[in-house]
């Protein structure tokens, strides 16, 4: 099985930030491999270790994104492709999907896998866009993957339960971070990653039209989430405070 995993460099959502005049400013330049993509890489590695195969990663991003690719290679991926951008283009999900489609359209693979969303924007659109543009059968929000008779068996967390979906290859799948704990690269992996190939590809060489790149959506400003009003904290005798809060929920909050 040949896996292509699309990965993204994203800001660490736990890093401190400020909002000034509607602009989001990260205090530290802490960029990480998107957690959902890390799960997609992990699952591809597990399946290729079990059934044989290879894992390639592809990443769109600025020069710094090569560190993100290196991380996936250190986890065990065999090869990386880096589609280099300035990082300031204001691309939306559609732009990313068009770039990935242009890159992947003449590639050979069995499974195209992506994180189900980016942890900074949580849009969750690019995966199914790419699948549609490449005419691949797909499913999203996978919490488990298996290979059976050359087909990909996906356990998908749906609205009414876990759907077991069988996809013929080539196919696409987006991964939840609930499917595994991505491995932390060990020293051997880190050393090995330095000898693994990363192709750098410039955007122009993919022959994408200006209109396919120009975003349909843009974030015009950021604001702080409206803060919740500080509530009351009750400490003391459990029996007393439990009954007091129960009554307040009825008389004050009016939700019983």
């Amino acid at each position: 099985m040949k896996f292509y995993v699309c990965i993204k460099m994203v800001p660490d959502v736990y890093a401190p930030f400020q909002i000034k005049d509607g602009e989001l400013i990260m205090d530290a330049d802490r960029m990480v491999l998107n957690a959902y993509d890390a799960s997609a890489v992990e699952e591809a590695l597990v399946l290729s270790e079990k059934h044989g195969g290879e894992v390639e990663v592809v990443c769109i991003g600025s020069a710094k994104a090569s560190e993100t690719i290196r991380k996936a290679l250190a986890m065990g991926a065999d090869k990386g492709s880096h589609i280099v951008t300035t990082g300031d283009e204001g691309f939306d999900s559609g732009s990313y999907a068009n770039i990935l489609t242009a890159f992947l359209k003449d590639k050979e693979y069995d499974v195209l896998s992506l994180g189900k969303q980016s942890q900074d924007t949580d849009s969750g659109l690019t995966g199914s866009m790419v699948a549609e543009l490449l005419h691949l059968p797909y499913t999203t929000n996978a919490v488990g993957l298996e290979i059976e008779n050359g087909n990909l068996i996906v356990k998908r967390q749906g609205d009414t339960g876990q759907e077991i979906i069988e996809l013929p290859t080539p196919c696409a799948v987006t991964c939840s971070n609930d499917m595994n704990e991505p491995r932390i690269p060990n020293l051997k992996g880190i050393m090995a990653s330095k000898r693994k190939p990363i192709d750098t590809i410039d955007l122009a060489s993919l022959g994408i039209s200006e209109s396919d790149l120009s975003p349909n959506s843009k974030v015009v400003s950021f604001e702080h989430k409206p803060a919740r009003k500080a509530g009351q904290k009750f400490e003391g005798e459990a029996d007393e405070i439990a009954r007091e809060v129960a009554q307040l929920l009825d008389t004050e909050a009016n939700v019983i």
Partner: protein
Amino acid sequence: MSSILTYIAISEGKIKRSSLEVLSRSKAIADANGLACEAIIIDENASSFTDSVQNYGASKIHIVEDSIFSQHRNTPLLSALSKVMEASKPKVVAFASTEGTKDILGALAANQKAGVVADVSSFDLTSSGVIAKRPVMAAKVVGNVEVTGETILVSVRSGSYELVESPITAEVNTIEFSSSESDLKAKLREIISATGDTIDLNEAETIVAAGRGVKDEEAKSLITELARVLNAGIGASRALTEAGVYDPSLQIGQTGKVVSPQLYIAVGISGAIQHVAGMANSKVIVAINKDADAPIFEVADYGIVGDLYKVLPPFIEELKKLKS
């Protein structure tokens, strides 16, 4: 007249309340902008839901009825939506942000070359398109997003809008559609539904959520009892669904379900930001935790500092009295 089209999600034979919330919003936008408010129902029994849908102001209801829609399958759902969009050329298509919607939204946008914005907490029409607010950065920040396009798809978080009835007699437009399972590349083998008859978290007015503090059968049965008394849905933090204590479909948080009930009772939940991202829009939050410094207290309207084994029995007893 140009239109705003709302997709009515049906799950297990019932209309998802969240899609009627979206329809209520669409109706208000349609009225304010001189657009037609239309709806689309795609289900094996689609026509049986038109009465409920016209009650929320849809003047035209598109019906796609086929047995293939007895379960969620993305390929036929995409074809049905594309067919209706091509026929009715709506300005906006609005969805409740269910897992079913998330599965197809990007693909539909790519297929229809539409602008798209997902998982918003509010949206409105502008002269050039749609403006929406959506939580980003683990829901710590709100982004204001402008979307352009001849058609724009919007998915809306549950609980973002109130239900507003505005009864009307709708024109029903039945769309020919047939699909056979054997033609589909992706095969749905089965659905493992571990939750049985429990209350859908996206629809629940009250949610009791269990966290790491709920570690044995005794604590679990207290949670069940509290939920029973309040007719509440039961949710859980990631720690408990990963440990297998509760079913993964009950996970509330950034990666699980995002909920906004009238009352949210967090029991033994510390309040990690991933969890808070999934429940911070609840109307009233109660937290029960023995650690007085737990971050959950920063978002709780009523914080009870105490051992859940000591707090829950009198809490449940008092609620029973109030209910009776």
